């Protein structure tokens, strides 16, 4: 008999070594997330996947599933808190959806819609951030970086490179690239690298591909992020 946990009262099976996120996804339960990606080592930093496990607050993407866990996921309290955490990400950077190429394909925007975020709630930081357009094929708009480290992990774990890193402390955190000049063009990033495509927001964009898919025909123009996520992020069982 397989081991089980309950999520919002529903009993679901899990395999030894799975996180709560993996068990939930396999069972068709969506837990909002931004820094998590099933193909990479979990990071646990965005805190959108916060769930309550037997009354205790945990990150579903890093916390192991264990027999007897009673997990709360889709509650009003958690939805409200997740919305506020998303609002924090919006005010920290400079996210101007109407003028962003990623709009409609952006996971930050999609999760904000999913959580019914209607305003920014908190005061804006108006952080001064730069754009690095030096690379022939890829650009970085630091205004939109949410420090999820997906590009860092993709570069290390899939591309076998070390193009990106997060540097600095606290609110001064920022994305840096592995070049003496500090410019993307002097790194070994190539346009085919996974790291160039994994950004959940519009912080890393591929040049000369903008608006090839018109607004209105993009991923989240037609589907909510929970559906998309469950369809595309099923854990691979061959590992």
């Amino acid at each position, binding site marked *: 008999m397989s081991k089980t946990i309950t999520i919002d009262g529903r009993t679901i099976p899990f395999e030894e070594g799975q996180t709560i996120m993996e068990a939930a996804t396999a069972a068709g339960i969506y837990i909002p997330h931004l820094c998590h990606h099933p193909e990479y080592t*979990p990071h*646990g*930093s*965005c*805190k*959108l996947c*916060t769930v309550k496990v037997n009354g205790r*607050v945990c*990150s579903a993407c*890093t916390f*192991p599933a264990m027999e007897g866990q009673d997990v709360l996921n889709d509650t009003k309290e958690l939805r409200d*808190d997740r919305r*506020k*955490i998303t609002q*924090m*990400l919006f*005010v*920290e950077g400079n996210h101007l959806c109407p003028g962003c190429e990623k709009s409609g394909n952006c996971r930050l925007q999609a999760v904000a819609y999913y959580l019914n975020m209607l305003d920014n709630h*908190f*005061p804006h*930081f108006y952080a001064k951030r730069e754009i690095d357009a030096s690379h022939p094929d890829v650009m970085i708009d630091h205004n939109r970086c*949410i*420090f999820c480290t997906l590009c860092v992990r993709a570069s290390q774990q899939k591309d076998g490179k*070390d193009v*990106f*890193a*997060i*540097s*600095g*402390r*606290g*609110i*001064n*955190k920022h994305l*840096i*690239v*592995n070049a*003496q000049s500090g410019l993307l063009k002097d790194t070994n990033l190539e346009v085919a690298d996974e790291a160039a495509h994994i950004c959940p927001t519009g912080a890393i964009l591929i040049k000369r591909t903008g608006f090839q898919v018109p607004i209105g025909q993009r991923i989240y123009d037609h589907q909510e992020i929970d559906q998309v996520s469950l369809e595309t992020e099923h854990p691979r069982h061959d590992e």
Partner: protein
Amino acid sequence: MRRFIQDLAEENHNQATHLLQILRAIQTRYHYVPMDAIEQLAGLLHIPRTQIISVVEFYSFFHLNPRGQYELLISDSITDHMLGKINLTGYLAKQLNVAVGAVREDGVVSLDNTSCTGMCDQGPAGLVNGYPLTRLDQPRIDRIADLINQQRPLNEWPRELFQVNDNLIKSGLLLGHTIAPGEALEATFKRGFQQTLAEINQSGLRGRGGAGYTTGLKWHLCYEGPEEDAFCDIATQKRQPRYVICNADEGEPGTFKDRVLLNSFAHQVFEGMTVCAAIIDATHGFLYLRGEYLFLYDKLQTILGERRQAGLLGNNILGQGFDFDIEIRLGAGAYICGEESALIESLEGKMGIPRNRPPYPVTQGYLGKPTVVNNVETFLAAAGIAVYGSDWFASVGTEKSKGTKILSISGDCSQPGIYEYLFGTTIQAILNDCGAADVLGVQVGGPSGTFISSQELNRKLAFEDLATGGSFIIFNNTRNILDAVHNFTHFFAHESCGFCTPCRVGTSLLKKQLDKIVEGHGSAGDVVALEELCQLVKNHSHCGLGQTAANPILTTLERYPEIYQSQLKKISYEPGFDLDGALETARRMANRNDAGAHLAQTAEDHE
């Protein structure tokens, strides 16, 4: 420079785990970490340059741009403020002709603030090139400014400027019954390791850093290690290595007891570490010493040398066939490294970012191996228990808090310093001893702890009532409690590692929202919004820093809601900033200062 970096890397065996030590040496020599040095180091240590840059930008004591040849830092603890720090810093800036946060044009001196340097009983304090300056006043500042302007090397400065006193005022069970070097180890070998662990367990000793995890259980879990170790044959030495780490990253503002313990009781602390190593079967230990305590480094190295000479460290300790040695590693200005998993990351040469748990350090700590991390005071107590037995310790204190607690007392009292108390002692009794009068309240456990008012002085020092890592800051009735809350809230925003959203963004939002209220720009609803934000940061942050960052606001809001309300304007909406002040630049540019060029803050002000 290339030669210097190369030799430095070699001295550190080209190990990336020594990155902080290497960068400390570079910062000391060049007063910054040049990009050329980073390039060279990346090659020598076989790590990406981004790892080095991220470490430099993470720790407060490293800089990518040149600081002065004399790097002056002034401690920004609330206790320094209470002793006149603001005016003195202003005076110092004037005498040196340098702005706070800047480097003087000739590159000779730079001046900045730094988080509490652990000299709260002898402040206002500062650091010059890492070495502490205590009891700063105008005459001392005049001397310091002269010495810097004459560019006199630090070793020619008068010693009394650097004088650090223990101020040990009240000794109890631990500080009154210290042990001779080797005594605890002999007792441990005689009694047996498992029997000594049983003594530690029975003593009820809990971690002295504040969290209070049972020490005996931690050691036991580390000895057991991860599940795969259970199948190893101990006799064939196939067990994974284990590590003992002494957490001397005493960063909680208002705490300075570990400085005194390491200055005057270091033998016993090292002995406690060695006893732990014997029990958990470790061969290597670290003392992670906060960068602010650099002045203790040479002295502690000497003591380690003495212990090796005496057969108490190194190979075949006391002829019992047990090998163990201790290495001292210095931090570089990051409060978060007091969190055990962030400390381990730092020891590995990385940014101090707390790890996801599980796994816990007892199964996967330093380099992924089972590791015990304990506070300085915990190791001191463990050595005492190894000699005097569990009853000696467990017979005093309360049911859940055995033994004593060493407090660092500072603030408004006639005798600040180190006091050791039985658990269960009332706050009033402590206040009587240290000469505190007209008390408004006490910050117990530092900014991450609790503020208690004068109505609660019968509360007790104990894990079951007021748990504390030892910080005890007294405020009298002349103080404005919001000044302390302001200082603490800014401290957390400065020290947040930035890993998780709720703490990275939340601590900065808390700072903004509190400033808005304190500066008189708050309106109805702003206190509610502040409290709501506090709960969010507290409930969702990744580690203890974020989970306690809102405590200064929450614990004072609970006790003095009227102080917060009285800061608010009596209107439903108040602009979040100073409207007239924002026009200042425009007025200057337009060369106008007539009535029409000014703006009232609210509609009511117009009337």
